């Protein structure tokens, strides 16, 4: 009888609870409490200096961000939106396209997969510095162009070029992750169904459209959410590649928070910006997951 009343029957919840305490302690103290503080400070005027108490100012920080009277914060919103949306599209297109090409396991494909993935093991800061040395005004590419008698290209010195270059560098560094996820997803697609469709006379495009793509639906959800979450917080690449410039052409929202607001002791404002970014990240993720639910139920029917 003693064995029946063991904890596996869920008798002593308290005992079970103690096992969650270490994880909860670390997580609560350094993630949840900071979020709480961020929310509190976002309603205050606070410069982070301990001797000066935060002063409650209500929604002023948020109003300042939304109305943005001197147009100091809106550029960062557009830059971040462009990085997240264009970046996520390019990352996913490149990753899915290459996953279809590298699907079969052989030596050449294994090598190519590793080559596509390697930028991800480099620190984003180092990726930024490396590309800055290649594409900067004095960089390798422009020296080659100048040496060949061509005019140089303003990769990092013209605002529009710089943003496009930065998105390109981010995509170069990131799509390997999504590629690996798509490769894993493709393994789960039923080979019999694809074969059956082929026997029924479907061509490659039709097999992809009607069998492979619907079966990939759960993977697509994961890749879109993970890529957008990581693109929304881009900071290190900016620092290494452009330092936000020229002007504010490549300042992302994360850069604005850390290198502009926080660096200028505007802790209250930085916290309001952080809260908004977390809200956007959470809302976007849940929206995507909700929108994808229908596609995913379709996937269950296929596989």
């Amino acid at each position, binding site marked *: 009888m003693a064995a029946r009343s063991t904890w596996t029957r869920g008798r002593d919840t308290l005992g079970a609870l103690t096992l969650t305490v270490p994880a909860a302690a670390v997580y609560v103290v350094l993630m949840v409490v900071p979020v709480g503080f961020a929310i509190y400070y976002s309603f205050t005027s606070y410069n982070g200096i301990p001797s000066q108490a935060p002063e409650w100012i209500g929604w002023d920080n948020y109003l300042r961000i939304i109305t943005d009277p001197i147009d100091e914060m809106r550029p960062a919103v557009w830059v971040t939106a462009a990085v997240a949306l264009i970046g996520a599209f390019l990352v996913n297109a490149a990753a899915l396209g290459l996953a279809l090409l590298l699907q079969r396991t052989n030596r050449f494909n294994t*090598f190519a997969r590793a080559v596509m993935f390697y930028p991800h093991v480099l*620190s984003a800061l180092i990726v930024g510095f490396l590309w800055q040395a290649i594409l900067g005004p004095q960089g390798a590419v422009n020296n080659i162009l100048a040496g060949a008698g061509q005019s140089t290209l303003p990769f990092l010195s013209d605002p529009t070029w710089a943003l496009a270059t930065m998105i390109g560098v981010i995509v170069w560094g990131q799509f390997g992750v999504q590629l690996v996820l798509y490769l894993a997803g493709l393994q789960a697609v039923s080979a019999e169904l694809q074969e059956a469709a082929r026997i029924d006379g479907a061509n490659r495009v039709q097999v992809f459209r009607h069998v492979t793509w619907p079966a990939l639906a759960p993977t697509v959800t994961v890749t879109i959410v993970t890529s957008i979450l990581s693109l929304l917080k881009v900071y290190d690449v900016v620092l290494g590649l452009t330092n936000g410039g020229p002007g504010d052409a490549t300042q992302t929202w994360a850069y604005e928070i850390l290198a502009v607001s926080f660096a200028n002791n505007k802790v209250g404002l930085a916290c309001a910006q952080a809260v908004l970014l977390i809200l956007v990240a959470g809302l976007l993720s849940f929206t995507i997951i909700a929108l994808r639910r229908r596609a995913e139920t379709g996937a269950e029917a296929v596989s």
Partner: protein
Amino acid sequence: MRGASRIPARLRVAFVAILSVAMLVPMYIMVVNAFKPQQEILRTPLGLNPDTASTDFLAAAWSNTAFPVVEGYAVTLFLVLACNLVAIGTAVPAAYVIARTPKPFFQFLLLFFLAGMFIPPQIILVPAILVLKGLGLMGTIPGLVLFMSATMVPFTLFIFTGYIRMLPRSLDEAAAIDGAGRQRVLWTIVFPLMKPIVATAFILNALSAWNDFVSPQLILGPGSQFKTITTGVYAAVSSYSTNYEVVFPTLLLAVVPILAIFIVMQRYIMSGLATGAVKG
């Protein structure tokens, strides 16, 4: 049919080969230019003349006081191990009881932890610094380890919970009937079965700890006596970013260890990423 698909196959190999070479060009530029003086880097960025190639620039980068290389490796490696120890060590027991207790409260607890995956660590750093100041841990290695571990806990716990749910419950019950306590069942029965997922978590957490720049830079402070690889590179490169005979050798020294590890472990790293993101 065969003949028709053979030409696209060749095309595909050619396309992938060209793309692979293109992906590797930045690495090539970094490696060859690490052995050249500034003049030559500017004149012939792609070439390497064996007669003038010199390791002087690597040696100069190696002894640059702004980026103490060996110490940078050591501090970063320590961070990787310490953060994994804290994150995995705390996530295993928590994931175990969450996975094995089918009560609504524990489901809520799981969601509570999962919410952390939507919080970008760099963004929460500002208020976290104020918390660390309050705890007296600001500017210290333990403070940095705790913050970085905290950011790893949600994902680690998430994949562990999913994995433990797949392990047969009968194992735990048999051990419990034989009189084993909860801790004993966890560490002697369940934990050894979790090896694959622990390896996955270790690899992913190690990559993010190794590459983290913002947390060490802001928590330790730019003037800290401890430099990680990334903060060291920043200190050595940011103000000399057009002095390429400093930039390229420094970047090369910074990436060599992680690239070597990647080349040896690439299969496990990539399959780990795939299981980690899809599980649960």
